[in-house]
């Protein structure tokens, strides 16, 4: 098993943890956190591939991660604003109950 494969396994394990978390929990914040974990796992892959790429000086993987982190920050901000909006409407953040499109 090459080190790259170790990294990839690490990343896929993290992705699956995030996936299971996002699917199994009903708390909106936890679901968001699970999605964050999945994003992080993807970032991890980029770095791993960059690390073992033939030309690391180009830095595409690193740049991609930087963009991805920026997008993740935006996602977290909007997601948590949504959570607060949901809470304001239904006084809890259980996603099963967030089934109305009208507040």
């Amino acid at each position, binding site marked *: 098993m090459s080190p790259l494969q170790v990294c990839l396994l*690490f990343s896929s394990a993290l992705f*699956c943890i995030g996936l*299971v978390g996002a699917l199994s929990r009903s708390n909106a914040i*936890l679901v968001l956190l699970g999605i964050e974990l999945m994003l*992080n796992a993807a970032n991890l892959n980029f770095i791993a591939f960059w690390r073992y790429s033939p030309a690391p000086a180009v830095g595409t993987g690193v*740049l991609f*991660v930087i963009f991805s982190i920026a997008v993740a920050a935006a996602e977290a901000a909007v997601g*948590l604003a949504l959570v607060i909006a949901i809470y304001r409407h239904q006084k809890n953040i259980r996603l099963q109950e967030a089934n109305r499109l009208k507040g």
Partner: protein
Amino acid sequence: MNAALAFIAVLTLASAAVAMALRNLIHSALLLIASWFGLAAFYLWAGAEFVAFAQVLVYVGAISMVVLFAVLLTRRSRQDLAVEPASLGRALSALLVGATVAVVLARAIFATPLAVAPTATPTISVRQLGAQLMGPHAAALLVVGVILTVALLGAVVLAATDRADSKENAP
């Protein structure tokens, strides 16, 4: 080298897994922060210094704060922080999906010839990164800027309340 990687991986995965399984939201959030730290450590291990610090700055410095803030704002009492466990069927099906994805991914990883030689840790200086960002990736940078601005405004609009005026009127 690989021992360090294994150490980082185990810590990160363990904290992430426990975070996803815990009932206490605050503990979950704090453990996730630990796993984000683990990821930063991995980036450092891989030689992506800038990304590692950015990861800490953005995730630990900003996103974790927003998460904790959201947790505190969306509870009525301390007991509320203990989230009821997911129903058994839901948990089982989620685990099933997760396991399936894991198996598929693992098979793909092992099936692909990825036998790269262990090389020395590459380095990329901040100056190089900057040149790349401002050169070939300038368009992407602008788009990210726009996304962040839009997200900021969107978040404000979503979270802003009707009483926005009451605080503003105070001197």
